């Protein structure tokens, strides 16, 4: 794994990490950190009482009602009760990320994402080459294009 940061035209910082080191440094690319944190905050930070009182604005059930009936009220509950559901799904399935098929509309969106990721990968390689060749002006241009590509997704 290679992380390259260009702060100013002449300052560059390169970090090389193997998967093992990445793990020990706490960088885990499989599960975004924010996702784990949101789960922990829901359960520990805000407390179980707050979680129980969470209410879905679409179907009207609370998290406490869900736990009592063990059936959710509508698809949107997966968004609203996410904090409580993540540890629950981990317990039931040993996983929190779907890896199977998707409806056609999502599958084509996923393909578009892949195409974008492919473009990013190519640009990042190009950036790496330019930085090594010390062609900083061109490198900065490529860096801006990478930024542009990344923007709408965030």
């Amino acid at each position, binding site marked *: 794994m290679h992380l390259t940061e260009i702060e100013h035209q002449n300052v560059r910082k390169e970090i090389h990490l193997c998967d093992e080191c990445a793990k020990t440094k706490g960088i885990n690319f499989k599960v975004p950190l924010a996702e784990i944190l949101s789960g922990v905050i829901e359960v520990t930070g805000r407390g179980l009482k707050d979680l129980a009182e969470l209410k879905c604005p679409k*179907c009207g059930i609370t998290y406490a009602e869900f736990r009592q009936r063990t059936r*959710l009220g*509508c698809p949107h509950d997966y968004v609203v009760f996410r904090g409580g559901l993540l540890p629950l799904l981990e317990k*039931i399935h040993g*996983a*929190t990320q*779907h*890896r*199977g098929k998707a409806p056609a509309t999502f599958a084509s969106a996923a393909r578009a994402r892949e195409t974008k990721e492919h473009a990013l990968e190519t640009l990042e390689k190009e950036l790496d080459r330019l930085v090594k060749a010390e062609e900083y002006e061109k490198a900065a241009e490529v860096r801006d294009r990478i930024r542009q590509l990344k923007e709408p997704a965030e």
Partner: protein
Amino acid sequence: MKPELDDLAGSAGEWLRGTGPESDVVISSRVRLARNLDGYPFLTQAAPKQRAEVEALARERIEGNKLGKGMNVLYLALKDLNPIERLFLVERHLISREHAAGDADRGVAVGKREALSIMVNEEDHLRIQVLRSGLQLQEAWDEISKIDDALDRSLTYAFSPQFGYLTACPTNVGTGMRISVMLHLPAVVMTKTLDKILHSLQRINFTVRGLYGEGTQATGDFYQISNQVSLGKSEEELVQEMQGVVPEIAKYEKTWREKLLKEKRTWLEDKVWRAVGTLKNARTISSDETLELLSLLRLGVNLGVVDGVDQRVLNELFVSTQPGHLQKHEHKILEAADRDAVRAAYIRKRLGA
């Protein structure tokens, strides 16, 4: 009585054919997918109007959709069916007990040869299932995936890239897939070695249930094993896992069958022939005793102890001697005692006694 149901009653379902790989131990392979429509609450929170809308929409799309070659369906609205007809569908594994007992707008679409059924408004808006005879998981998955794709073209499923297909119960989320394989394990039960299988299956997150699913007792030495995990693995992986486990159990059962035949032949033959004697001569017989004796007869046929009984007739008897089928056959409601007499007569006739 719905005339369409008589057509079903006239022939046995695809899964009862008694053919396919490992069919001496594996009765059937079933794959089901849970799906919900985007924009509607799940059924526990749906208002009567929304339930009716979901049923109408699903029915229209299922009937009007080209689900594939030879995939014409018969749609049955449950409110049009009496309790016997509902029980009849449960016994044929076309709907669940919960679906049969439920009220309001519900239905089931049944495919040709009963290899396909789509329950509408059960726990989820759609429960699609494909049944095959013997061990045919890959075939069942390929087929159900195509049907799912066809429905996906005209309905919008509730889906999230992280959690997959969204379901009312979090135990079904992700792939929404449950694979169930029905096994006949008489030798394992006789030799009291079932616990070993149950323990190893539970360790790898498989559940074991009786003939008619959740919460039912295993009768007639039939066991249904299913995957518990539906999220975090692809459908192909789930199929492969089950495909890896089932032949091992079948081998175990067959080893015990051979062992019994070698070491306790007279004892085994006596048990089988006594079962034949009762089945061919009884004047009244309960449904539990029927299952127990048919199980012995099936074992006898598979081991060559008894011949001249068609595996298919035998498989059909397991279903056609159930209360719903008998009452449907007689076109009237029968008390338990009357059912037992009708059942005995029916078995004698089918076995050519």
